[in-house]
């Protein structure tokens, strides 16, 4: 049984350590905040200019001036601080943010990340992702192991334009957990009843 989106987010939440300042990307990474383990206190950064991001509001407390980097309405906490975009990226680029958890289109066996465009097809932009992967302490990626056509997304080298080179530390897919090491991707954990043979068939990157 492979993991679903929520199980991937729950597994990623185990990467969080007490006292960390963490940036969560758009999509499945946002779900990680639902699974922060008991006794672990983390402060979430939103790169549009907020530390201490709270949960979604109610209809009564919704505020157009208070959104996260995914443009979703959110709330503030006792610890919240607001700042401008240059300060926000000073703390990212300056290495103050301990971890970023991001989505990906492709990751290579050397830790290259591609997640911002498909030439001539999908032009979204990198947002803050290039700054995050260049600046934060540790980069964890959550992604489906294969694309909608069943093709590998963990590759020897990325085919799409890169977000960063040699930047990914750990990858969590619906099939397991992998670390970027010297000779390829090291299998750290497998989802229940997933075998190494299953992985080999759907992974182009070298597995060690």
């Amino acid at each position, binding site marked *: 049984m492979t993991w679903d989106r929520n199980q991937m987010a729950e597994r990623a939440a185990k990467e969080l350590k007490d006292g960390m300042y963490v940036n969560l990307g758009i999509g499945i990474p946002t779900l990680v905040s639902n699974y922060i383990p008991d006794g672990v206190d983390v402060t979430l950064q939103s790169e549009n200019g907020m530390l201490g991001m709270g949960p979604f509001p109610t209809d009564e407390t919704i505020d157009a001036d208070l959104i996260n980097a995914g443009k979703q309405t959110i709330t503030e906490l006792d610890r919240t601080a607001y700042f401008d*975009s240059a300060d926000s*990226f000073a703390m990212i680029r300056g290495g103050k943010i301990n971890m970023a958890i991001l989505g990906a289109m492709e990751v290579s066996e050397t830790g290259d990340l591609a997640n911002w465009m498909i030439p001539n097809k999908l032009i979204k932009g990198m947002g*803050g992702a290039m700054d995050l992967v260049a600046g934060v302490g540790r980069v964890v990626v959550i992604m489906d192991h294969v694309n909608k056509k069943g093709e590998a997304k963990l590759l020897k080298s990325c085919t799409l334009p890169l977000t960063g080179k040699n930047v990914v530390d750990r990858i969590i897919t619906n099939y397991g957990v992998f670390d970027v090491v010297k000779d390829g991707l090291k299998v750290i954990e497998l989802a229940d009843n997933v075998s190494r043979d299953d992985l080999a068939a759907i992974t182009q990157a070298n597995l060690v």
Partner: protein
Amino acid sequence: MKKIYSNADDALAETLFDGMTIAVGGFGLCGIPENLITAISRTGVKNLIVASNNAGVDDFGLGELLATKQIAKMISSYVGENAEFMRQYLSGELEIEFNPQGTLAERMRAGGAGIAGFYTKTGVGTVIAEGKEHKDFNGQTHILETGLVADLALVKAWKADGFGNLIYRKTARNFNPLVATCGKICIAEVEEIVADGALIPDAIHTPSIYVHRLIKGKHEKRIEQRTVIN
């Protein structure tokens, strides 16, 4: 010196010309100078180069200036919410210069602070680095990015006094303070103009020196992704 103008059209008078560069504050639709953008759509000024983190949505924010085809080029980090943008870009009508979000913010900050350029690790090994000077510091490769100076800066703040001191609210601050500094002329639109002396000097985000013209606007403050707890 009089800084308060009666409306957005008056505030924009004699600041616009074809081919100019305009820096615009906001993140998504949050904290955008919506009155000034709409007023520009009425002027017919064209071939604009617009530096803004995002490009609005189809019928609101900078999407209004895309609909009228007044924008020739965007300098942005993320444009994924705008179908008309995508159409104009893929058909070659519109140019885009992608800047990583932190690089865009720092380019505006540097431009406003008289700093010609800075080195950053952001974008090394990607298409963003192509054609840019590379230099190693402490064993790590950086690229040279330049400060950005705009002909005109448009910002949205929460409160102003008559001198042009500005205070922003929550995450509507975002790029606005940086945009304010990087324009040769800066026009601010605010929700409220308070009595002189009513702002707490320690709490002012943008000091008046950066702000040349000021209007009180009417703000729809459209929400892009309305998410609530059930």
